[in-house]
Each structure stands twice: as structure tokens, then as C-alpha cells.
């Protein structure tokens, strides 16, 4: 048994979307499908504005709603904790899409592609990998994990904001990082939407930047200055 988990450190993350594209490159997902996304959040009003970039991916919940909602038993949880959609069993009912409170399951009724039809890249190496009209989602790159490789987004993250490993193994990179950050910066990992009680394995560390802003009091900037 193991508990594979991804930790995203929001201090390190710069919101560059390298993960988004690395995932597309790795998984060959069709148009409009992004297993890894980055939410670009802005909060407040000028000048007291905060920006937060939140990389989102499948949380591989221990109590996964998509799995429970699937009427076809196509979604399963491996002993190592990875939740997968069996592409052969899935019948594209679409229940899991609504079931996931994070919106991380994707079902495109008919795939649209990026390149011209005669391009070998998509024709021979991307399209054949995919079943049609099935739900898809992030697999933690299970096919890479099975070869002892890190997921593509982890490998591609230019700020190493993503750390992957087995939470039950104290020697894994993720366990060590959690312990290190606990003692050095006092940050505790947290989950998204704890109220949904999905018990995710993907977890986050908060941003350290203060994100204060300073501008002369309201009004004076409205005056046009030349």
C-alpha cells in the first residue's frame, strides 16, 4: 500500500501554466481538455488587489465522488491511491463530470483536434491513444509512475512547485518537503474544498508573499496626469 500524493507549493508557483501544457504534451488530450489547469484568481478592488494562481488537477480523493457517482464502475482507485477512469469501461454517461466538485473530469462528446488531419503527430501518435466519448481526467501520469517516473507536470514545473511522492513513506520527497516546510516556514499542507469531504490526496502549501499594495488614497489617481 502506498498513498501517492502531489503537493503544490503556492509560494513557488508562478502561474506559468507549464504544467498545463506539459500535461497536454504528455497525455495528448484533445481541444478543450486540460487535466492540469491553473486558476488565475484576483481578489479585492484596486489598489488592494491580490492575485493568486492555483494549479488544479485531479485530487485523487480517497472518497472520490466521481468514483461513487459512476454508474458503470469505470472509475477505480488503485492500491497506491491513484484514481483512474477505465477508458474501456467508461460509457460516457457523464455522471462523474457533475459529480466532481472540483470540475476535474472531462467529457467531450466528440474530440476536436489542433492539427491538420494528415499530420502524423496527431494521426499516428496522439489520436490512437484515446477512446472516444469517454470521461477523462488526470491520472497522476500513472503510466509514468508505473515506470518509476514523476508525472509530466512535476518534471516540467520550472519552479519545482510540484512535489510528488508517497505520503506514507517518510523518505519520499513529498513527505520530506512537508516536514521541512513545517519546521522552516510553519506551513501546513491543506486541501481544496474540505467541506466536500472528499479527502483529496493532492494538497497545497500556502503563499508566503504578503501581497500588500500601496497607492495614494482613493481618488487622486483619477485625475489625468501628463
Amino acid at each position: 500500500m502506498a498513498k501517492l500524493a502531489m503537493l503544490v507549493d503556492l509560494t513557488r508557483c508562478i502561474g506559468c501554466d507549464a504544467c498545463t501544457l506539459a500535461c497536454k504534451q504528455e497525455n495528448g488530450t484533445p481541444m478543450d481538455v486540460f487535466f492540469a489547469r491553473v486558476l488565475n484568481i484576483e481578489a479585492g478592488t484596486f489598489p488592494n488587489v491580490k492575485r493568486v494562481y492555483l494549479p488544479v488537477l485531479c485530487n485523487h480523493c480517497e472518497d472520490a465522488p466521481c468514483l461513487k457517482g459512476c454508474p458503470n464502475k469505470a472509475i477505480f482507485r488503485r492500491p497506491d491511491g491513484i484514481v483512474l477512469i477505465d477508458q474501456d469501461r467508461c460509457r460516457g454517461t457523464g455522471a462523474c463530470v457533475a459529480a466532481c466538485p472540483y470540475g476535474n473530469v472531462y467529457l467531450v462528446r466528440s474530440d476536436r483536434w489542433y492539427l491538420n488531419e494528415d499530420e502524423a503527430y496527431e494521426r499516428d501518435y496522439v489520436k490512437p491513444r484515446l477512446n472516444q466519448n469517454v470521461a477523462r481526467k488526470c491520472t497522476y501520469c500513472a503510466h509514468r509512475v508505473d515506470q518509476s517516473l514523476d508525472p509530466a507536470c512535476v518534471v516540467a514545473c520550472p519552479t519545482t512547485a510540484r512535489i510528488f511522492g508517497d505520503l506514507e513513506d517518510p523518505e519520499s520527497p513529498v513527505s520530506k518537503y512537508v516536514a521541512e516546510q513545517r519546521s522552516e516556514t510553519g506551513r501546513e499542507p491543506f486541501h481544496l474544498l474540505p467541506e466536500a469531504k472528499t479527502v483529496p490526496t493532492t494538497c497545497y502549501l500556502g503563499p508566503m508573499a504578503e501581497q500588500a499594495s500601496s497607492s495614494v488614497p482613493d481618488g487622486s489617481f483619477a485625475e489625468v496626469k501628463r
Partner: protein
Amino acid sequence: MATRHAVPGRHPTESPPGVARVVRTTDSPNCTGACGWLATVVNDTIVDLKPAADYPCDEYNPRGCLRGMSMTHLIYGPDRVKTPLIRTGARGAGQWKVAMWDEALDHIAGRMIRIRDEFGPESMLLFNQVVGTGYVQKGAQVRMAALLGMSFATAYDFNGDISMGFTHTMGIDCVECETKSWGHAKTAILWSSNVFQTRIPDAQFLTRVAKQRNNCKIVVIDPRCSQTAKGADLWLPIQPGTDAALALAMCRVVLDDGLLDEEFLRKYTDFGTCVREDNGRRLRASDLGMGGDDRFVVWNEVTDGWTVLPMDTLDLGDGIRPALRGHRTVEVEGRSVTVRTVFDLIEDELRSDAYTLEAASRVTDIPADTIRQLARDYAVNRPSSIVIGMGLNHRLHGDLTIRAVLLLSALVGAHGKPGESVSIYSGQHHFRLDVSAWWFPGGKRPNAVPMHYFTMGKPTATMNPKIKFPKSGFKALFVSHGNPLVTEFSDPIKKAIDDLELFVVVDFSMTPTCEYADVVLPAPTFWEKVELVGTSCHPYLQMQQEVLTPRYDSRTELWMVRELVRRVDPSLLPHFEFDELDAIRMMLEDGGKEVAGITVEQLQKGPVRLKVHDPEVGCDEQFLEDRLFPPRAYPFPEGAQREFLKTGRMEFFKEEEVFQKLGEALPTFKPAFEHLPEEDRAFPLSIVTPHSKWRVHSTHCNNPLLMNVNRKPVVEINPRDAADRGIADGDPVEIFNRNGAYQVWALVTETIKPGVLCVDHGWWDRFLGAGKYHSVHTHQKVKPTHENYYLPAVYAPGQHWKDTRVDVRRVK
């Protein structure tokens, strides 16, 4: 890459069909990031890209970003130029004849010969973007231009990357510490710089290292809450174009609070030199009969007398201690002349009412307390770093702003240590090696002409006499990998092109520039050709491999110029009978001390570290080895820059008459828009055009993968400005002024300062709602202080398109 059809853990893993080959290479787009990649190739198709992450020093790993990752969709994208194309209709009409190479080359060569014979070879202009990213291939084009005697316009100054503030102060157009050095900073000021978007592989040194390890205080100064402001402790929404006022007010805080680093000023700056009150020139050794006209004197506190500054080292030893303050009277040619130190002049300037905290606060919209605190943090909470973005530089008075920022850094001595520098990552101009052996065979150089004069159609009255503008004007233009019709100057360039007899574009994507060409030649992408790649961001030299055979009918630039030369002047052919590896060997052999001992064989195995300091702190030779300013600008010979930095120190006083005339002898603040005609100034809004996360300039604009994420060009607008104009989020809007108009869609957001609009740059016209990209910016003006000397891409005119005022309205 993913396996076929498999359900991991349920079905056995199947490898992709065919035999996979993994190639280590580097890409070389104009972000100049030079990231190493591992490409998995099956049947001559790239099926997977992963960062190579093989830099021997692990801190640099991994490198790569979303744009590099999406390159497959440009290589295989629908816009690839597949064959040579010859225009059959009017320019831009889209009527083409699909040609064979022989036909296209004959077509070009025939015209080249005629133009050469009729108007002289210098009336043919080569403009390639951007040579720093292609020492071999783009270098081959320069080699051809040099041998044929053509003109050559460096992209660097035309792009506005040239930072004349640096040239004026340090004798070199930009100074860049390698990004690893950021990690040491405790205070980092990102001055209109958006490194989280523009330097993605390097941003980790700010977040992972500086912030997480040193709890560095990161300050972002920018009218919009940029992506980088996300990671900042403090965001200062400054009034656009007022940065110099902020910098000089900070300088004043440093003065008032006694935070000066006088030892730094004595050693590295011209603060100890004196200025004559009679003619405003610097006091020279010749004035006092102590030496030549090119030597300068300081008042030596050790000897209490005048001493000539050494011109072989910055090290003054124990014997010389320049006085920073004081009026002195000297005898010059029998007359008594009052001289004052540069420091005194600067102190006077800073003490003027314009730079009080209150005055600066009124101009910049930043509270006085914040300015004071920022100055104190910068001076005290060391090491402190400043990264300048192009928002400061793309203004007519951008040079003054940068001089002001450099003044601030010099006053507190924030240079020369890891984490201490003022950097502007404006391009890969800083060649890591001397490429002259390949580019300039036998020392023969092309006739360098700034692109500005081509765009304006004629030289300015103040053009530097060194520049040889062709007598009969330009007749042919060769653009390689450039997209000048997707710049702020697309309209005037189009007009200039209309007067040409030949307009050839070399590219791999059918850009708007290609669409306007007479002949389009298909080039391979940087995944299909061999190249030598260096960057100022990290100290590794790398080789780019031919991962794929060039697709379609594309041919390398080296092949193209060889075939052209064969047709135009066969006697020059022996100069081109080399392959890429030969060229690399040639450059490595004569490349200078940084690449001494590096061989092609080493490079083929992986990245090779240059012989430089670790980490490089910017101006290493000056700050670490006491060699005189300026740092050498490859590929120009040693000493070429001396004429515009005569003292060999950081010059904050410019003695040339043109500076005096404009009142710019000292760093000063000039309002950004005052040079515009009254009618232009009347427009209420400022506009900024930053880089986009989704593109490298205009490259990737047509990348179907990235367009999937970034679907429409938007203008960021504050809700107040939007409400005033009845604009709702998502509305189609037109940005307009007297120069032009174009239509994009509104993104109403609180993250931008009221009174400022923001449209990211590089959108091709076909993606706009209507109009021409950035046509509102079109006005070309050259500042005379930029024409005083000329050294291509080092001392040359800059650009100022951010000095634009516009308005915006909702369209139906």
C-alpha cells in the same frame, strides 16, 4: 508520452509504434531562455518533449516553459511555410506561385544582381530576428551580407531592447547578472518587470530561493498587478512614465538618511571627476597639463592635490581617494575656472523641489512613506537587486529613467555581489563568445544601418555621420524570422516596403510579414537544424541538434545563403563551403576566454559551462576584477565603446553637448508625454503592451495549442474606466487615437490602475476584431542623444512606443 489505449495498472503498457530515439537539444526562440530539452522521436516525428534538466549545477534544473512545450504544434501546425512561394498578385493579396527552390533562388538572385549593379550592394538590407539566438544560421546570413557588402539592421535596437540608459552610464546597452544571482537577494525590486511571465525558467530563483530561503522582500512596481505581483510582498501601482521621479526621490532619501556607499562611488563612478563651470565639460588631465585629453583628474584626498585617474584599472589602491565634494578653482590655459565634482552636481539636482517625497508622491501616486521605506529597504536590507523591465525603457525618456535607477543603485553600492545588481533582461544581445570569425570573414563587416531610418524612409537630420545610409535609399529587404508587420510600427514599415523592389522573408510560419512578401522561403524550426546557443540567463553553452530532418521543403539558412551566393557571386562560394559544425568550431576557436577549451564534442554531449564566475553578478570584470568599464560588447573589438564612456567609470554626468542642450547631462525626470503634440496628449488613457505568457513576442500567436487557452485578444481595463464608457466585461471595444484604431475585447479587472489600458503584445491582425495591431503606437522619433555615437545595438536609437495616449470605446 502516454501509452496507447492502456489503462495503467489494468492493461499491459504498450510502447508507441516504431523505434524511439531520444535527442538532447536546446531551443532558441527570442525569449533567449535557451532551455535544454529531451525530445523523443519516432519515425522522424517528435512524440514527446521533456525538460532535459541535465545542467551539472542542479540549481538550474529544470528549464523549460509552456511555450517550449507547445513547440510541436508549431512544427506540425497549419501555418508552416511548406515550399518557396513567389508572389503573383499585389503585395499582401495572398496570390502565390508555389515554386521550386531553384526557381525561387534564381528569382531572388537575379534581382539582387540587378540592384547591386544599379544601386550598389548597400541598398539591400538584411534584418534578422534575433541574431543572438542563432550564432550559426542567422550568422550565416550576416556573413553573406558582409561579403556581398549589403546593409544590415540589428533587430536589437529596432525592437527597443537597447537600453540607452545603460549605454550612457556603463557603456554597454544592458547589464545582466545571471538569474541564479537573484536567489541571494534580500530585497528585490522588479521595476515594471514581469519575470514570472517573461523569464519563466528563471523565476524559481525568486520564489524558491530568494523568497523561501531568505524571505526576500519582493517589490513590484507596475501600473498593473502583473503575474509577478502575485509573488510580491508589495505592489506599487505607479503612474505610467513617472518611474524616474520615483527613483530620484529614492536617491534623495538615500542622501538625506546618510545611506551612501561612498567607497563604491569613489571607485566605480565618475562622482569624483569634476565639471568645468565655463564650458560644462569634464575636467581633463590635459586641462591641467597632467596628461592627455583622454585622461581625467580627481581631487585626491590622500595627497590633497589633483591626481590623474588610472585608465588601466578601477583599483585606486591606498594612494588615491577621490574627493566627492567641493568647489575648486583651477588654472586652465591661464584662466581660472571653477570646477565642481559630479557628486555635487547630482546632490544639487536631487535636492531640488522636484524630488521631495511629497512631490514624487504626487507624480507617481505612491505614498511618501512607502517611497521612503522602499529606499531604506533597498539601501539597508541587503543584498538588494533591481530587475528593470521594458516598460521603463520603451519611452522617449526611458534612458533617463534607467540612468536614475542606476544612480540609485550606485549611491548605495548595490553592485558586484551575488544578489546585487541592476539588470535588464532585454535580449540575448550579450553574445557569450566572439562570433566574428564566422560572421565577419577577414574582418569584413556589413554596412550597419539602424532599422529606424529604413522605417522612416530617410535619415534624420541628426543621424550619426558614421552611418552610411545608401545614397539611393533601400531597394531590397531580407527579413529572417522577424515579424515587423506585427509590431508597433507595422504601418510605416509597410509604407517603406512599398517602395522596395525586392522583399524576401525567411520563416517557418506564414506570418503577416510573410503574407506581404515578394518571396517567402521556408526555413526549418529550431528543432530541425543545428545551432550554437548561449544566453545571459545561465552560464551554459549548448548545441541545438537536428532533432527532425527539416520538414516539407524547408532548408537551413546556411544552405539558403550558400545557394544565393552561388548565384550572385560565385567567387565568394568558398566562404560558405562549411557545415554547421565547422562554423561552431570556427567560433569556438576565436571565441574569447569564456569559451576557451570548449569543443564541439563536449557540446554534443550536453551543456558546457562557460568560463565565468559563479554566479555571474553582472559586469563581473569590473566589479570583481577591477577592469575599466565598459564590459566588452561582443562582437565588437575591445575599445570600440570607449568613445562614449570616456572615463571608464559609471558615468552619471554626460558632458556631450547634445545632453547639455536637452538638459539631460544628469539623470533627471521628464514627464513622459510632454513630447507628444497637444492633440495626442489630450487622449485620457495610457496604454502598456507587455509580453504575453502565451507567446514569445508574436511567435506562438498562431499555435493552435496555446490559442486553446488564450482565445481572444483582450484589453485590461479598470472597472471605473469601463463604467465611464459603458463598457462591460467581454464587450468588443476599439482602442483609438489619432494614429489608428484596433478592436479587441474588454477584460474588466481590478488589477489595473485606473487610467491605464493593457493589451499584451504580439497579436497577429487576423485574431483582432478589426484594425491593425497596435496601430495606435505608430509614431517614430529618434532622440538626438541616441545618435551621438553609433555602435550597432550598443549605441543606437531606441524606441518609445509606450509614450502613447489613447481612448477606448465600445463597438457594436
